[in-house]
Each structure stands twice: as structure tokens, then as C-alpha cells.
């Protein structure tokens, strides 16, 4: 029973933090662009509004897919240790996390493709291409950390960096961190890697037919994915944290970098993005891997 409660607690906590980050992110971008920007709680208002609106659906796959997408991300989130805690005692295996995340994306892709709008399908096709682009360098970085620690447990990797800041993988393996940061940028779908959204080009791509609560669920999915992805980076490179507050702070630092990059960059075409991801971060990551393994 207590475990079920923990599951809910962790789930909603992630949603909360994710939305909070999104709101602050918008604010920061506005300030970079010399605007006032919306209030930091704007994301909550948006989600509240979306859930209260009526929405349209094309068939049951859309409903199923959207639910699946949030479910996948929340499930992933439950595997990621937050300041050493996980909702349920598991080995928080990195590979499991990477694959579970995919079910969320698959659900989203399925839902939007079910609408039958070509813009949505183009968006998904770009998103999946992008995924191939960033997963490879990101995994290469992860591989190095897994090999040096001899474990694929995220928790153990985080624990191995305990102590001073010099033990952080970020300091020990700066190249890997840079590669992972670039991959993270793509993973979150932020500029310059947002070819799949591209509102002016393909009418916000996957989201084109999402309305009301479906868009709300997509927002929540995005929020949780921000939480999960930053949490993975924090665990991998910044040694986790001893309490939740520091953990969220570290997550926010990571998110801050992403947002700042997002604010100042234009957009890559999809093939440019993939080529970039396979050349620059990939070679950095490989260099790091070679340094680690040999």
C-alpha cells in the first residue's frame, strides 16, 4: 500500500517539478530576449486550462496513445533515483530507463499519427530520426561511465561520485559531459534541435491535432521528460544529491543550460541535425570512451 502511495507521490512530484521548470524556462527566455515574460506559474495555468477545455479525438488510438505516452514517462521517472530515493526498490538500470522512455515517445507518436494529419506524421518522422541522432552519442557517453564503474545501475554510478565536487563525473570526464549536454539538448527537443516541432513549418508537427486534454497530456509528458532527462544527467555527472532540494537545484542547473542554448539558437534542418549529432558530439563521446576504456 505504502508503495502505491509512493508511486503516486513520485509521479505527481515529477509532474510538478517539470511544469515548474517549464514556467521558469519561459521566463528566462523572455528575459534573454529583453521581455518581461509570463509568470513562473504560467505552465500550471496552461495545463489547467487545457484540461478544462473540450477536445477532439479521431479514434481510440489517440486516447490510448496519449495515456501511454504519459504512462511511459512516469514509469521511467519511477526508475530514476532522486537523491538516492526511488519509488520502488529497483536496481535503477540505465538501459531499462532508456528503453522505458521510448514507450512514452512511441505512445505519443502513435496518438498523433492516428489523427491522420500529414504534418503530425512528418513531425514524428523527424522526431524519430532525431532520436537516432542523439541516442547514439548519448549512449556512447553512458557506455563509458558504465564500463568504468562496472555497473549499469544509475544509483551506483551516482553513489560512486560521492564526496567532493572533484569526484563528479562532470569534472573527471568533461568531454563526456559536453557530449551528453548536446545530446540532451536534442533529447528535450529544444533549439537548435527542434525540427520536429517547427511551428512555422509543419504547424507544430506532432501536436497539430492535439487539443484540450490531449495537449495537456502532451504538456505533462514534456514536463516529466524534462524531469527524467535532467535527473539522469544529474545522476550520471553531478553525483546525485543527498537531499531532494539539492537534487532539484542541480536539475535546474542542467535545465538552465538547455534553456539558454535554446534561447539563442536558430533551427537545424533535420539532416543537418543528425549529421551534427553524429559528428561533433559523437566524436567527443568516442574520444572520451577511448580515454576511459584504454
Amino acid at each position, binding site marked *: 500500500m505504502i508503495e502505491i502511495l509512493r508511486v503516486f507521490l513520485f509521479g505527481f512530484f515529477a509532474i510538478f517539478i517539470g511544469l515548474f521548470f517549464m514556467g521558469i524556462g*519561459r521566463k528566462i527566455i*523572455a528575459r534573454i*530576449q*529583453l*521581455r*518581461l*515574460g*509570463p*509568470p513562473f506559474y*504560467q505552465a500550471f*495555468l*496552461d495545463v489547467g*486550462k487545457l484540461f478544462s*477545455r*473540450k*477536445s*477532439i479525438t479521431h479514434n481510440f488510438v489517440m486516447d490510448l496513445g496519449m495515456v501511454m505516452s504519459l504512462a511511459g514517462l512516469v514509469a521511467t521517472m519511477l526508475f530514476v533515483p532522486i537523491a538516492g530515493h526511488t519509488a520502488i526498490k529497483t536496481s535503477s538500470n540505465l538501459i531499462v530507463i532508456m528503453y522505458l522512455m521510448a514507450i512514452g515517445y512511441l505512445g505519443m507518436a502513435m496518438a498523433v499519427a492516428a489523427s491522420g494529419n500529414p504534418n503530425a506524421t512528418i513531425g514524428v518522422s523527424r522526431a524519430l530520426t532525431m532520436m537516432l541522432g542523439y541516442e547514439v552519442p548519448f549512449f556512447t557517453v553512458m557506455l563509458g561511465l558504465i564500463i568504468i564503474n562496472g555497473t549499469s545501475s544509475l544509483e551506483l554510478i551516482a553513489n560512486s561520485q560521492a564526496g567532493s565536487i572533484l569526484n563528479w563525473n562532470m569534472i573527471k570526464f568533461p568531454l563526456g559531459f559536453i557530449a551528453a549536454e548536446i545530446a540532451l539538448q536534442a533529447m528535450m527537443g529544444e533549439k537548435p534541435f527542434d525540427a520536429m516541432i517547427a*511551428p*512555422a513549418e509543419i*504547424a*507544430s508537427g506532432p*501536436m*497539430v*491535432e*492535439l*487539443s*484540450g486534454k490531449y*495537449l495537456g497530456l502532451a504538456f505533462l509528458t514534456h514536463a516529466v521528460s524534462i524531469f527524467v532527462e535532467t535527473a539522469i544527467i544529474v545522476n550520471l555527472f553531478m553525483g546525485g544529491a543527498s537531499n531532494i532540494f539539492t537534487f532539484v537545484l542541480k536539475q535546474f542547473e542542467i535545465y538552465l543550460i538547455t534553456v539558454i542554448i535554446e534561447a539563442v539558437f536558430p533551427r537545424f534542418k533535420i539532416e543537418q541535425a543528425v549529421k551534427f549529432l553524429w559528428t561533433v558530439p559523437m566524436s567527443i563521446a568516442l574520444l572520451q570512451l577511448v580515454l576511459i576504456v584504454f
Partner: protein
Amino acid sequence: MTSRWDVERFGIGPMATPRQADVLLVTGYVSLKTLKRIIRTYEQMPEPKWVLAFGSCTVNGGIYWDSYNTITNLAEYIPVDITVSGCMPRPEAVMDALQTLMKMIQSGEAGAYKKYKENYEYYKANQDRVLRKTYPILGEKLIQNEEAATSIE
């Protein structure tokens, strides 16, 4: 509406598709060709939805009042919640209108989309009356010809 005026501070932002939108801004004169698309876009928006008519052209035709292919009053074809006069209206005016609309929504005054449902025949009749003049871009004959050509293959 851009960073100089920054409507985002009120939580307002442009959306790429009608599915995600709450408010439809009709900016400038409405030709018959545009009207058709406005109607489709409006009908695709999920409820609740509001329309902001922007500039004189949408109210009385503006300088196009006697044009053969523009409409003069948008409210005859779709229900308009609020209008902004001026040619062109200042950004401040638009922002003011949006703020007013927000207040109206809170107070429950703005519910024109309900009117559209109730008086659908009226709006439909008006739309049909003017849209009879427009034809499909490729024309039905052309489509048929094309199909015939493919079937021959």
C-alpha cells in the same frame, strides 16, 4: 505583439493550429476566399472558443467597403466576441481588447460560440449566400478528369 509589447506576460501566445487555439484573431479585410478558410478554421477549434475581429475592415469593410469580393461585416458569418476598431489598430488597442476579452470570459459575458450553435442556420445561410460565388480551385470537372486519367492508366 512581438517582444517589444510582449503579450506573453499575460500568458498569451500564438498557436500554430486551430486545435490548440482559444481565440481566433481575424486581422484585416476578409475576402470571400479567406472567409471560406476562416469558417473552416473556426469550426475546427474546440470549444470554448472566441473570435476577435481586428480592424475596421472586419466590421464594415473599411476601405474595401465596395469591393466585389470582400465581405463587410464578419459578424454575419461567424459570431464575433469583440472587435477592435482602427485601421490599423495600435498594438495597445489589441492588447486592451484581449484583456477585455479575458475579463468578459471571467464574467461569463463572452459566449458567442454558443450563439453559433444555436443560430447555425442563420450563419450557414449567410455563408452560403456569399460563398456561392466561389468555386473549388481545381474545379470539380478537373478532379473528375484527373481521376479518369488515372483510371485509364
